[in-house]
């Protein structure tokens, strides 16, 4: 930062140019996908129509007929929203307990929970599939929600814990002196004070749920299948339905892109696990 003082004008311009070029490179694949989604399947595979083509909305209009998009989208919304809500409902009291009533083992418990995130999911995949099938919850929203919640809970608790740690203990203790109940403390003091952090955590959890594929592809067939499953099941290797697949992919990531643009601060904060304040 201090280097700015001595940097020349050309240096500044070249750095800005470099940043723009890199940003374009990063954005290009997304841009390309969105661009392709407005081409017909035939145009999409012809390089001469890269930038100049007759745009069409057909891919989007036919999304329901081609892929039954809205059903999968609805499933994605339902499972991601509820999984996030449940993860917060379980995570907030848990992180609260760890941040304000730590015992000797709190750090160990936190480490241990995080370590489950590092374990290969492959080792738990079959038992979970087996359990869901044997209790008849296979391919149900409920099961997908529970699984999504479980796999994201460690990260959610970890993030909430780091946010809660920043709240001065004295505030909580003052409330305890006044005889506020634990639930009252959480609702009246903790949640308002850590609101920004909670929103970032929720956004992160939502994005992870939305993108999850390893589990949702396995635990669903049609009823509770999410957009990940839809895309996974329809990827055509030879570019047959290039245009329409682009459209459905764009529609699958669209909500995240739009949501992210409006909550840039929370997106960055959430996706970097609270490291960027």
């Amino acid at each position, binding site marked *: 930062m201090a280097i700015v003082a001595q940097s020349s004008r050309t240096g500044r311009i070249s750095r800005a140019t470099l940043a723009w070029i890199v940003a374009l490179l990063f954005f290009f694949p997304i841009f390309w996908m969105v661009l392709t989604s407005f081409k017909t399947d035939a145009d999409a595979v012809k390089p001469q129509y890269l930038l100049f083509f007759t745009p069409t909305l057909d891919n989007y209009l036919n999304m329901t007929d081609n892929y039954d998009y809205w059903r999968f989208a609805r499933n994605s919304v339902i499972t991601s929203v509820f999984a996030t809500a449940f993860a917060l409902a379980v995570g907030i009291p848990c992180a609260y307990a760890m941040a304000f009533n730590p015992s000797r083992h709190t750090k160990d418990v936190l480490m241990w929970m995080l370590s*489950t995130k590092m374990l290969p999911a492959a080792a738990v995949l079959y038992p979970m599939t087996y359990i869901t099938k044997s209790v008849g919850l296979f391919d149900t929203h409920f099961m997908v929600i529970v699984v999504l919640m479980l796999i994201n809970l460690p990260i959610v608790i970890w993030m909430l814990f780091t946010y809660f740690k920043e709240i001065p203990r004295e505030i909580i203790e003052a409330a305890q002196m006044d005889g506020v109940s634990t639930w009252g403390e959480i609702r009246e003091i903790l949640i308002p004070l850590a609101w920004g952090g909670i929103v970032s955590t929720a956004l992160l959890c939502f994005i992870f749920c939305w993108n999850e594929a390893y589990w949702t592809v396995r635990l669903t067939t049609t009823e509770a299948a999410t957009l990940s499953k839809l895309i996974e099941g329809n990827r055509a290797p030879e570019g047959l339905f290039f245009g329409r697949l682009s459209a459905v992919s764009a529609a699958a990531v669209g909500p995240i892109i739009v949501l992210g643009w409006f909550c840039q601060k929370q997106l960055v904060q959430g996706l970097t696990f609270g490291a*960027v304040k």
Partner: protein
Amino acid sequence: MDETGRPRRPLRNLSAKLAMLPMILTALVVFVGGTLWTVVHSFTDSKLLPRLDWAGLEQYDRLWSSDRWLVSIENLVIYGVLSLVFSFLIGFVLAALLDQKIRFEDTFRTIFLYPFALSFIVTGLVWQWLLNPDFGIQSVLRDWGWDVTVDPLYDPGIVIYGVLVAGLWQGTGFVMCLMLAGLRGIDEDIWKAARVDGIPKWKTYLFVVLPMMRPVMVTALVIVTAGIVKLYDLIVAQTGGGPGIASEVPAKYVYDFMFRAQNLGQGFAASTMMLVTVAIILIPWAYLEFGGKRR
């Protein structure tokens, strides 16, 4: 943790403990229980359904003499090492670039981070198209008159590097954001002192600033590594493991043997191997990293 002798109602502490119970219970039942179950069954000859017919180490024998498994391991090592090296390298350079008080920094940050918000499935799909010789980058470049060959996905020798590019595109922005946060945490005076002493800028970065960014580095390392172990969606969407078995990875091996080849024992053995490998790397490292600071 400071366990100072503050008077505390035992009941309150109890309710706090209760709040942690659901998480601990599920973690125990699902993660530990499920994992143990898998490990036990990896010593059986389960095929279509899990059975407890003891088969000793037979599954492991078969696993380690399978070409596909060896290729999977090799691919994961190549992908893992290179994606760690490059995402940290590029991430750091980009972070240093954005740290120069560039205009629209927030916009850049969001754009760099966008790929990380996309699912691996979509990332894989988009990069499969981009790297397709018939209608991807190559065809566009040819259309412009440059005769180049960019089709890593169709060459068994380099297909994993094609996957690597997509993986880097997805994850580098995240590393960059963390690094940028780390750079922001560096005291301005450090830079001034280094300048007064006449230390070149690159040396300051390498020997002074980087060691100070240890905490964010650790966070980035944990997240990136967790992503590498799980590498599956990207492969499925981008190459499907092909051409042939050239881009297979362990997680896919497990998946395919459990649910496609109806050979559960093999899948269990493979997932146990993954587990053991992760544990061998993770446990000593976790002790070194977190064990020291506990109190």
